[in-house]
């Protein structure tokens, strides 16, 4: 390996990127494509909030419903589900394991092309008039024999393949590509969380795959499996759909929790409190998450018995989640805490995620859920978990690994400013929605009673603030990547393996495969 060569300047030209099997390059490809979709999804979110700024209709309700649908489809299937595993997981996980690449580099590239294929289908469906089914595609509303519904469902199907392939790759990588001495008890907590996520991706995604495929067939041939007119059961569709889509929530949040574990240890320069508990709680969450999907269906006319069973199991998910949160706080105890911007994101995550978590208990308690179900309370809750949780973690992780990925340092003041806008904006946007939900404002409404107006206006203003925050973050990234100072090998003083190699890493990652003799967080 010649001096000064790294994975970025190893080869030049667009084709060298589009055919690259280097996990770091594929991670960057994902970063650009997911970033693009995040931008579109974000613009749609602000359009939604603009419509809801005033009672009455600014946009046609039919158009609003399309905004709402594509905001959901894009943000769920094309941003948050692939987000952390495909970008940061791809780039960082092999480094954490002391491996030269993921187990199947070609499959990794294939999964990106599946993602792109799904993306093209999603766009195509917009040109066919746009689906207005909501991202959940509930039948029978989604059975209307329109091309837009078919392509939108196919987009989810193809993107699902991307997710499965990433999952297969990561499970095999964690099983087989650990460097000498890297026992399962020595892998980083980020890797643990990605491992649990990958299991979910492999086991849950195919079910939604077949479900949306059946939906496509329903729209082409009217096969009737989910169509009450032909004897089908629309509630079974919901069962199948949530069998994936509930674990999908954990596909989104588990890797975020992994990132937070990394950030907390690094910036308090202290070993993690309760490594085993955090690692196993990831697996516990992954396992139990398959048994709780019915809590999305408490009012769906599923039986009372099923509702009660699903409610009690849902409560169990709360326990490992609580364990993680307590362990993070305990890690701070007697640490040496440095308030750099990644740490700010980690603390912001803790704040927001705790609110998201405790409101989750309101929703898993059946009696209160009956009132909150499908109101803005639910909207606020899952944005607190998925956006406040996952996006805060993505941003924290992005700042944290930015010097490793680009070799340069971002501007700290700008990064802090982006944090302020995103954190404050987020709470301003979504906290009022809890109140709106308690008042009874249903979700997916293009228009609402004037009594709800003032809170909606606060919420809309907050959404523009978040938008500003992300623009600042974008500026910080671009400015840092081109103008930033050289970051050096280990700017944060972290102990994990990726910081023992040059920034940016060379194509082969490690000159020589390291041998590990201790756990990942040995701050003594």
């Amino acid at each position, binding site marked *: 390996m010649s001096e000064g060569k790294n994975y970025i300047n190893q080869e030049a030209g667009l084709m060298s990127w589009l055919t690259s099997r280097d996990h770091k390059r594929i991670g960057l490809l994902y970063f650009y494509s997911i970033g693009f979709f995040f931008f579109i999804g974000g613009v749609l979110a602000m359009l939604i909030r603009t419509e809801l700024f005033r009672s009455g209709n600014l946009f046609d309700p039919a158009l609003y419903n399309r905004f709402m649908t594509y905001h959901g489809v894009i943000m769920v299937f094309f941003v948050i589900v692939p987000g952390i595993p495909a970008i940061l997981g791809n780039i960082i996980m092999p480094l954490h394991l002391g491996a030269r690449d993921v187990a199947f580099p070609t499959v990794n590239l294939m999964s990106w092309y599946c993602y792109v294929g799904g993306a093209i289908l999603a766009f195509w469906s917009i040109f066919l008039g746009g689906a207005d089914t909501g991202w959940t595609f509930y039948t029978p509303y989604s059975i209307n024999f329109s091309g837009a519904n078919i392509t939108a469902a196919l987009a989810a199907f193809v993107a699902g393949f991307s997710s499965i392939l990433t999952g297969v790759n990561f499970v095999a990588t964690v099983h087989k590509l650990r460097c000498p001495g890297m026992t399962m008890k020595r892998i980083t907590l980020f890797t643990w969380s990605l491992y649990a996520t990958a299991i979910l991706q492999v086991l849950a995604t195919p079910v939604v795959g077949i479900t949306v495929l059946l939906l496509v067939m329903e729209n082409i041939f009217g096969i009737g499996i989910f169509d009450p007119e032909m004897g089908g059961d629309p509630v079974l569709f919901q*069962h199948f759909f949530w069998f994936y889509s509930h674990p999908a929530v954990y596909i989104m949040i588990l890797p975020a929790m992994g990132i937070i574990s990394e950030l907390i240890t690094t910036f308090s320069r202290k070993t993690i409190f309760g490594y085993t508990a955090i690692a196993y709680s990831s697996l516990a969450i992954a396992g139990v998450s398959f048994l709780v999907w019915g809590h999305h269906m408490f009012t769906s006319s599923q039986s009372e018995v099923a509702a009660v069973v699903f409610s009690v199991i849902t409560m169990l998910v709360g326990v490992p989640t609580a364990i993680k949160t307590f362990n993070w706080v305990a890690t701070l105890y007697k640490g040496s805490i440095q308030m750099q911007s990644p740490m700010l994101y980690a603390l912001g995550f803790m704040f927001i995620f705790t609110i998201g978590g405790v409101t989750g208990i309101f929703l898993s308690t059946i009696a209160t859920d009956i009132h909150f179900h499908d109101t803005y309370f639910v909207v606020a809750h899952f944005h607190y978990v998925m956006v406040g949780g996952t996006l805060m973690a993505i941003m924290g992780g992005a700042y944290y690994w930015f010097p490793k990925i680009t070799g340069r340092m971002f501007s700290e003041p700008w990064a802090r400013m982006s944090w302020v806008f995103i954190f404050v904006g987020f709470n301003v946007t979504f906290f009022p929605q809890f109140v709106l939900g308690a008042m009874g404002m249903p979700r997916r409404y293009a228009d609402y009673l004037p009594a709800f107006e003032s809170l909606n206006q606060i919420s809309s203003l907050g959404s523009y603030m978040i938008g500003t925050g992300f623009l600042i973050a974008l500026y910080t990234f671009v400015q840092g990547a081109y103008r930033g100072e050289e970051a050096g090998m280990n700017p944060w003083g972290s102990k994990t393996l990726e910081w023992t190699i040059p920034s940016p890493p060379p194509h082969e990652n490690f000159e020589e495969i390291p041998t590990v003799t201790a756990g990942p967080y040995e701050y003594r």
Partner: protein
Amino acid sequence: MAEHHVIPFSTYIKVFSALIGLTFLTVLTAKGMDLSPFNGAVAFIIAACKAGLVMAIFMHLKYDAKSNSMIIFGSFGFVMLLFIFCVLDIYTRIPVESTL
């Protein structure tokens, strides 16, 4: 690469004969005898036996790393979960009738 366990030719043939035999058996039980209400269960058990043979010998699971067996049986477990919870809902619903 290290030498892998090579399953002898004769084993393949034996397993194949057993599979054919079981196929005849399943047709015989379904069409020749009237085992209702156990028709479905019998057919399913025979199919499971055949599947077990294919996995153990043709797919080399018997001589393979235990982790692969765990992976595949795990997936059957998750299909069962999907089944159990869907059934839990559908068979405990209380039907409501119109009273008009």
